[in-house]
């Protein structure tokens, strides 16, 4: 029972008990001590009751890519959690709970406190149990009291009276934690690190990347797990002077965004698979009218309404093929918040450079987990080649050009009438059924594909580590794989970031002469099928997961062991 990092803290309780709030407070306090932090959560689709948990894993010495199965400290906010998470405890683990909640099934891991009595003493509501108990953790870890009070006052900045009460409770908890004198956990250094980094989730990173890319119009209909993008942007819309709007449906959201983009606004929508299904018709419209649009699709397990609050990577084949007809599109899949930011920015840039729909394929695990990461890069959007003001000459919205990109004037431009047409059209936008024109328009649109393909080859693949044995993956599954990689030797991880166009040559080069397996969060091996189709090669093995949960690094380690690679 060493005092070593990493340390895993799990907070569990019924929905409405402040499980996530507590995990963010704990995560932030650790983060502000200069510790690397990762926070993930699991919750059922309901507002009160049920059971949910959040796990904070941290270490000052190494990047934390994901959770592991066992927790060192469990903060149980109710009787059910006190019983249910005993099996999640590590060897050195303890479970903190109210004396009434953990009275039965007593064992040496349990640390009981008179939490509810304290709340009564302080005339505090039941919901404040989460902060009181968090205080115990801060006491155990010797957190800086200044940092704790800083985080608390920020958390409750809109409700000053709550901040005061919660601070009192945290301090009381702190005393209880110090008095416990448990020696098996690492101590936080008192010094707060100067270097300011970010502790951020995938959804917010996507929102900020788009903002950096010049987004001025966002529309979305609420759908878990994409809704936090809407909430975040709605909250900051006045600071950034952008339109953020929740219309009557996903159909309305994407059509509004297409209208806004036609008028000249860099526009984005965000949804999950079910909402994307409704948007598919308009996806084709964006392609046919060559209107730039960015669609964020945050995957959850499906089909239909599936598991609304869980994670999956089951929509890959859907998004690369969605809509009738043939047209060029771009599908990008970030695997961590840094990539969520840069690819969201990139999505906006590509959409406007090539006048194509760009889909950013995220997932619940990425979207709602928090990672401490380095600063986002400072990005400047390119000025673009949109025509404003006045046009010289004979304007044709769908002029046939060498690279397939036609001059895009905005309505309001003098001497240029902009006719966008979702039916097949001539160079001016007028409807046509002429076979020669139909062929030319198809060829014009697909000429963009060549440029997009070459970007995909350059930027579509990333590698980690060295070795002749390769794990290929995409999206956030990269994170538990990288966590597992810490204990695996001579294994290379290859992440595919561009799923359409597919970086087949880059991947072929990467895989040449090596054995490779594919790991992804679905049942049928959708990336496996794309690789087989594009590269005409078959992986040595495939590990899928389809229970709505992200991979545990342990599962990856034992899979790699079963291959005899270690």
């Amino acid at each position, binding site marked *: 029972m060493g005092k070593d990092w990493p340390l895993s803290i799990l907070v569990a309780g019924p929905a409405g008990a402040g499980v996530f709030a507590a995990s963010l407070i704990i995560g932030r306090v650790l983060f502000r001590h200069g510790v690397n932090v990762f926070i993930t959560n699991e919750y059922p689709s309901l507002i009160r009751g049920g059971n949910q948990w959040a796990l904070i894993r941290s270490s000052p010495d190494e990047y934390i890519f994901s959770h592991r199965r066992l927790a060192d400290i469990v903060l149980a906010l109710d009787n059910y959690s006190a019983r249910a998470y005993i099996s999640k405890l590590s060897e050195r683990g303890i479970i903190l709970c109210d004396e009434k909640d953990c009275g039965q099934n007593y064992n040496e891991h349990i640390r009981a406190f008179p939490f509810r009595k304290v709340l009564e003493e302080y005339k505090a509501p039941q919901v404040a149990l989460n902060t009181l108990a968090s205080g115990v953790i801060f006491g155990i870890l010797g957190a800086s009291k200044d940092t704790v009070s800083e985080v608390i006052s920020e958390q409750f900045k809109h409700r000053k009276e709550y901040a005061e009460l919660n601070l009192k409770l945290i301090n009381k908890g702190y005393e209880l934690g110090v008095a416990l004198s448990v020696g098996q956990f690492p101590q936080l250094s008192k010094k707060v690190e100067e270097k300011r980094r970010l502790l951020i989730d995938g959804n917010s990173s996507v929102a900020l990347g788009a903002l950096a890319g010049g987004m001025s119009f966002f529309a979305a209909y609420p759908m878990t797990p994409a809704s936090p993008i809407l909430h975040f942007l709605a909250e900051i819309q006045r600071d950034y002077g952008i*339109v953020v709007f929740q219309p009557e449906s996903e159909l309305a959201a994407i059509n509004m965004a297409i209208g806004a983009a036609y008028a000249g606004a860099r526009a984005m929508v965000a949804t999950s698979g079910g909402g994307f299904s409704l948007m598919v018709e308009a996806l084709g419209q964006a392609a046919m009218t060559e209107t730039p649009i960015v669609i964020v699709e945050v995957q959850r397990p499906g089909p239909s309404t599936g598991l609304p609050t869980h994670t999956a990577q089951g929509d890959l084949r859907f998004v690369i093929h969605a809509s009738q007809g043939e047209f060029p599109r771009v599908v990008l899949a970030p695997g961590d918040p840094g990539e969520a930011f840069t690819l969201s920015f990139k999505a906006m840039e590509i959409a406007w450079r090539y006048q194509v729909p760009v889909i950013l394929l995220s997932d619940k695990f990425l979207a709602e987990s928090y990672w401490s990461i380095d600063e986002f890069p400072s990005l400047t959007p390119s000025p673009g080649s949109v025509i404003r003001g006045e046009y010289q000459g004979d304007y044709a919205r769908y002029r046939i050009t060498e690279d397939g990109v036609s001059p895009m004037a905005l309505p309001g431009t003098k001497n240029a009438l902009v006719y966008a047409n979702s039916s097949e059209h001539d160079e001016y936008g007028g409807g046509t059924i002429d076979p020669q024109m139909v062929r030319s328009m198809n060829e014009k649109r697909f000429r963009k594909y060549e440029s997009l393909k070459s970007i995909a080859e350059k930027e579509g693949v990333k590698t980690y580590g060295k070795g002749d044995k390769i794990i290929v993956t995409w999206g956030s599954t990269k994170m538990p794989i990288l966590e597992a990689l810490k204990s695996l030797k001579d294994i290379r991880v290859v992440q595919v970031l561009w799923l359409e166009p597919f970086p087949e040559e880059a991947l072929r080069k990467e895989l040449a002469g090596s054995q490779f397996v594919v790991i992804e969060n679905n049942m049928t091996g959708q990336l496996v099928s794309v690789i087989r189709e594009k590269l005409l090669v078959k992986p040595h093995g495939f590990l899928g997961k389809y229970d709505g949960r992200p991979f545990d690094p342990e599962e990856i380690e034992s899979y790699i062991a079963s291959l005899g690679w270690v």
Partner: protein
Amino acid sequence: MDITTYDSGRRPVWCPGCGNYGILLALRKALAELKLAPEEVVIVTGIGCHGRISDYMKTNAFHTIHGRVLPLATGIKLANPKLTVIAHSGDGDAYAIGMGHLPHAARRNIDITLIVHNNMVFGLTTGQVTPTTPIGVKTKSTPFGNFEKPINPLLLALASGATFVARGFSAEIDHLKEIIKEGISHRGFAFIDVLQPCVTFFNTYTVLRERVYKLEESGHDPSNLEEAFRLAMQNDKRIPIGVFYKREEPTLEDTFKHAMNPPPAERLPVKVDLSKALTRFR
């Protein structure tokens, strides 16, 4: 400016005698009289015979997919309120597949004009029933007669809080032109249902000519909501045309004042300082 200003030069492919010609002419006249430059105007059209109108108008245009005229037009207007946005929809487009969007456009009072080409039948798909087909009418999809009660578009618009509700008749071109002018000049959502015979699948010329009467000639006060409801329900042998109801209210664009200087469409992509938004993640 005269009506030729707005003529794209493309020859209409509507059936001879189609009610859409009247709407096209009324629209061009209205724009000419309002002296709107073609580049200031965006025509948004849906799918169906009405949708072809964008081919014949020399203005900006967006010919969108079936039923999505209103959200598309809303996006354009929100992104650039300087544009005059005129949406066209058919009765199938507006009241069948696109019905979900109509009450919302009305209640949020987006400053656009919606002109519904209401011929009470699906024309381009060769004559099936729509939500405004009268009960009992035999169409290709209702060979034993339409069994559904038709909806009342004007009641729907009034009940949804539309701030401008009118009905026109495509054979009364100058009257329709005045309604369109008033609708375009109205600040807010202007709803204009236009009775428009389909000469091929549901020819209603004779009946409509006999029954329509003009509201302004009967002394109707368009600020009277209750009276507007009563007139919209008028179900006897007389069909009122003209402006039923009109009121000034804040528009959707007003809600987004914080984003309108300059409006989203005029924003140049520049480096954005994210530091304020990032403070919560530090």
